[in-house]
């Protein structure tokens, strides 16, 4: 059985696409056949992060409209042959997405893939709602600041009431927290919410804390998912996330400053 994962947040710019790319790559690297779909129709980004923007011929909307087959639209990742990308259309908008169409594409993908990662657009409109509707698991990406936390809370409410699992009264969507752009120093100085403050409001299973890191931007610009950068804390943190999602028990790190182990190891590189 394929599992459909939605990466969502409500708020924009918190790291949904970075996370989608990283965990899709992580799952594929672990040997699971994985597809990652860009739901941000009109604001296509995932292809850039995955470094496949020059190989896009057909897109998600073409498949929904029956203008291309799913195999024509899927792009195989150049770093991992277990990973496929289904890009969004840049020339259309979210209205091109239909519940029936998305359902059909996911159903077809589910026959071949173990994991399907849905990269949700920001907001709570059609694109975001369709990205989460079919989900089995939700990765809620949150930055340690109040507006992001509240928006995540709102998304959790939508997951609990408007997802297919909720509508069908099935076992609820499994919700996981990913705290991104976390900076222990700024938490210490009170500029940023700490993990406890966030969990006070969201109380979710924590899948990982991704520290604020320059390597994320570098990786994005290079079109290589940051999880492949084994020298960066962010990359390691995403590896932990994937391992924990797959059931491994790994202690959380990068929560506070004092475990300078990695810092020493990597010469203070963030």
């Amino acid at each position, binding site marked *: 059985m394929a599992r459909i994962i939605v990466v969502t947040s409500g708020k924009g710019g918190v790291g949904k696409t970075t996370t989608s790319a990283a965990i899709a790559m992580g799952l594929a690297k672990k040997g699971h056949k994985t597809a990652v779909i860009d739901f941000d129709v009109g604001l296509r980004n995932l292809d850039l992060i995955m470094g496949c923007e020059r190989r896009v011929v057909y897109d998600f909307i073409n498949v929904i409209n029956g203008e291309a087959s799913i195999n024509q639209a899927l792009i195989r990742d150049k770093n991992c042959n277990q990973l496929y990308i289904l890009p969004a259309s840049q020339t259309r908008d979210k209205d091109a997405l239909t519940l029936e169409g998305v359902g059909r594409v996911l159903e077809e993908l589910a026959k071949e893939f173990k994991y399907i990662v849905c990269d949700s657009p920001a907001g709570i409109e059609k694109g975001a709602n369709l990205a989460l509707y079919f989900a089995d698991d939700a990765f809620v990406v949150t930055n340690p600041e109040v507006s992001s936390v*509240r928006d995540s*809370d*709102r998304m*959790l*409410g*939508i997951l*609990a*009431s408007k997802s297919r699992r909720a509508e069908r009264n099935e076992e*609820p969507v499994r919700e996981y927290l990913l705290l991104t752009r976390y900076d222990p120093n700024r938490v210490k100085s009170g500029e940023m919410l700490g993990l406890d403050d966030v969990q*006070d*409001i969201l*109380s979710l299973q924590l899948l990982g804390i991704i520290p604020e890191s320059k390597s994320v931007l570098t990786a994005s610009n290079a079109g290589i998912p940051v999880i492949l950068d084994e020298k960066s804390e962010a990359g390691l943190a995403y590896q932990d996330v994937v391992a924990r999602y797959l059931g491994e028990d790994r202690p959380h790190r990068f929560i506070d400053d004092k475990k300078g182990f990695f810092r020493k190891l990597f010469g203070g590189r963030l």
Partner: protein
Amino acid sequence: MLNSSSVLEFKSTTFFTPILILNTNDIAAIEQTLQEKISMAPDFFKHSPLVIDVRELNKSELDFSVTEIVETLRRIGLFPIGLRGGTEQQNSQAQKLSIPVDAGRDHDAGAAAQHDRRAAVATDAGAENPAAESMNGEDKSPKAAATAASATAGLTAQSAVPVQPVRTMLVTQPVRSGQRIYAPGDLVVMSQVSAGAEIMAEGNIHVYNTLRGRALAGVQGNTSARIFCLDLQAELVSIAGDYKTSEHITKAIQKKPVQIYLQDHALIINEIA
């Protein structure tokens, strides 16, 4: 108002209304007796609403016309607003006159107690039994009583408003930002209520966790409704329309277990020790 449209709102309440128990079908006697009563206390009876009780008449199998009685009462300045104890035919007559019919389900067994209660209510409302002295002394055969019992629509409540059974809604999942919950009775929430969430109940609200959103109890006007929560960080709390925003909730009781209730239209928030 916070939670209803500005055009109108529905509230439920209990009224005390005099009940006019008729023991005779002699319209002239009824009219005369009522006139005498009214002349004794004109202010009290002026435009007084009345519920007409015709059970005695039906028990005694006396013939009468609901229309005639209603017209008589209206003529002398009373407002009949209900009929109880009427037969099917009498009820339909009343409905044609736009007079609501009480179709209670009291059994004959409770009739005696019911009679006492009825008397008490009538006394509470300051109304006596105006036609008592013209009581008709006819025999009440068992047969007649049985007929009356089946034809009688008894009353349980002392008011025209039917008492609704209390229903409690239980919520075990977190109430997230943007979610709304409405309970027609009491509401019990075991999980946290996030900022931006709204929980409403016609009855009491219990939150056995942190309350950060809005909580509105007694939304249909029940001023005796209360809110209980283990950790008060609410954006707004309201009982029967009287509210306080977090700005007006003193620091001393924030993040504390509290109960919130109305006293003389003032919202009281007390820490539960």
